[in-house]
């Protein structure tokens, strides 16, 4: 029996969430005394993972796997699971992982829980804590099937160092036929995606118009942050839908969320509530967001944000 961790990659390197996923799987493998296998698809150098304790790394490289395809990736992972009698599969909360996990759960006849925020509170019966009601609550979910799949929310489990010298195992996967073709790919240049970001800088209607987003982008650049926006801003077409965070947009579980000119509707607060630290900058001292934040500044975004940006630049220069 084994535990398998599937890790996502970007530009053929493990994503940051990989270290969280492997650390989570390592802790679980210790509790269950099982071997930990990491599956890396089209990753050139997996040595960064060794810090977090895998026993084996299965690296699968193939030109046909260059483009992610949920059905094909799920099929390959299930081949590895069968070969190594995997009982538990751990993956991240990333878009691709959550795309393939339900497919994998049917292939393996496994019970699957997503948005998990902690190690199992009980192993028998196997019970994990996850978010529910769009981050307005948590719940305990028990997996009753023999095989189990867990998707761990990004930024909810901190990487734990646990160095190992894993065996690198060759695995000849049968690659199924591709049934979907990618016609075009449209990537926003140079920006950080909300799902990957440690810091998100988000702005609302308080910015008064799309032409004023320069100060938000500058601040995000300084912090290496992703930019986001409130629902009205995306509905007005000031910013793309992909930046809309909240209950019907993207959930954000980042280390630092800076909300500028966002009053804090209940749906928005739900979407960002699992972020660790929230800073609110708003002209209205009565804005509901102040009740849900850690640090607040009552002030005009057009004055505060550029000043904050200059100070942060100086801070970064000093601390790097």
């Amino acid at each position, binding site marked *: 029996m084994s535990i398998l961790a599937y890790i996502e990659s970007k530009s053929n390197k493990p994503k940051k969430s990989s270290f969280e996923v492997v650390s989570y799987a390592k802790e679980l493998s210790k509790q269950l005394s099982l071997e930990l296998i990491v599956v890396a698809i089209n990753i050139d150098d997996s040595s960064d993972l060794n810090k977090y304790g895998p026993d084996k790394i299965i690296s699968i490289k193939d030109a046909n796997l260059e483009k992610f395809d949920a059905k094909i990736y799920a099929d390959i992972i299930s081949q590895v699971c069968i070969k190594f009698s995997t009982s538990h599969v751990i993956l991240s909360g990333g*878009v691709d992982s959550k795309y393939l996990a*339900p497919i994998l759960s049917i292939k393996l006849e496994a019970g699957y829980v997503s948005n998990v925020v902690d190690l199992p509170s009980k192993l028998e019966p196997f019970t994990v804590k996850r978010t529910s009601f*769009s981050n307005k*609550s948590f719940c305990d979910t028990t*997996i009753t099937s023999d095989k189990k799949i867990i998707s761990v929310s990004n930024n909810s489990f901190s990487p734990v160092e646990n160095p190992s010298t894993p065996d690198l195992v060759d695995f000849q996967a049968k690659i199924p036929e591709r049934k979907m073709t990618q016609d075009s790919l449209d990537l926003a240049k140079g920006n950080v995606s*909300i799902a990957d970001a440690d810091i998100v800088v988000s702005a609302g209607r308080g910015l008064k118009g799309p032409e004023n987003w320069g100060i938000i982008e500058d601040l995000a650049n300084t912090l290496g942050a992703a930019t986001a926006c409130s629902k009205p801003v995306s*509905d007005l077409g000031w910013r793309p839908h992909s930046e809309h965070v909240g209950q*019907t947009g993207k959930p954000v579980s980042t280390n630092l969320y800076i909300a500028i000119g966002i009053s804090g509707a209940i749906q928005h607060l739900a979407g960002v509530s699992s972020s660790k630290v929230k800073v609110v900058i708003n002209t209205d001292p009565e804005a509901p967001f102040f009740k849900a934040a850690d640090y607040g500044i009552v*002030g005009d975004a057009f004055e505060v944000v550029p000043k904050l940006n200059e*100070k942060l630049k100086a801070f970064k220069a000093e601390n790097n």
Partner: protein
Amino acid sequence: MKILVCISCVPDTTSRINFINNDTEFDVNGVQFVINPNDEFGLTRAMWFKEKNNAVVDVINVGEQTNDSVLRKALAIGADKAVRINRKATDSFQVATYIADYAKENSYDLIIAGRESIDYNGSMVPGMISEILNINFVTNCVGLQIQDRNAKVEREIEGGKETLSCKLPMIIGGQKGLVEESDLKIPNMRGIMQARQKPLESIEPSDLDVKTTTNKFYKPEEKKEIKMLDANDLDSLINLLHNEAKVL
């Protein structure tokens, strides 16, 4: 073209979330249930296929009789028939299996579900259905065009968008972008009157072993008091973020 739209009945986005019976059950008292927003974008997209391509649009839900009012709303928006699998939904695998069973018997060209429901946020049901039925699947779907048996689908990915082509039959996990918020229809009186005459079938399913059970809910811990800082003292903010919160 035959389309099946999967409808989840969820608390309205403004609902207060509370629990009863020793925190084992969601408190429905005073809560208004609505069509899951991600499903409603999909239903509206299906209506366009109905208008332009004469598609037949059925909606399906797994749940108890209390969900009928939400299904009536889907009929009032324009769906032709509603089907309710009469069983309390407890687990995504159960919901996906029941819907897949129904879809298999009634051969749909296109199944539209939401990317996730806003209550349990599992993002599981459409992917599971796709695998049970062995059909193509695109989630986080923000655009869908169909010509003959060919679909062109836009999918939101991290940091951008991709366009994919595949053959029907397929299932999508839809979200905003499939149609815009302003495209959503509030049913008019004619629609509401017509909905009363439309079929709403209740089907008794066979028993099924679920794979997960949810048995205890928690409210998030009370937030600690906010620290208010002066707009002219941004050094303090940076200092706190660095030394206290340790996020810089």
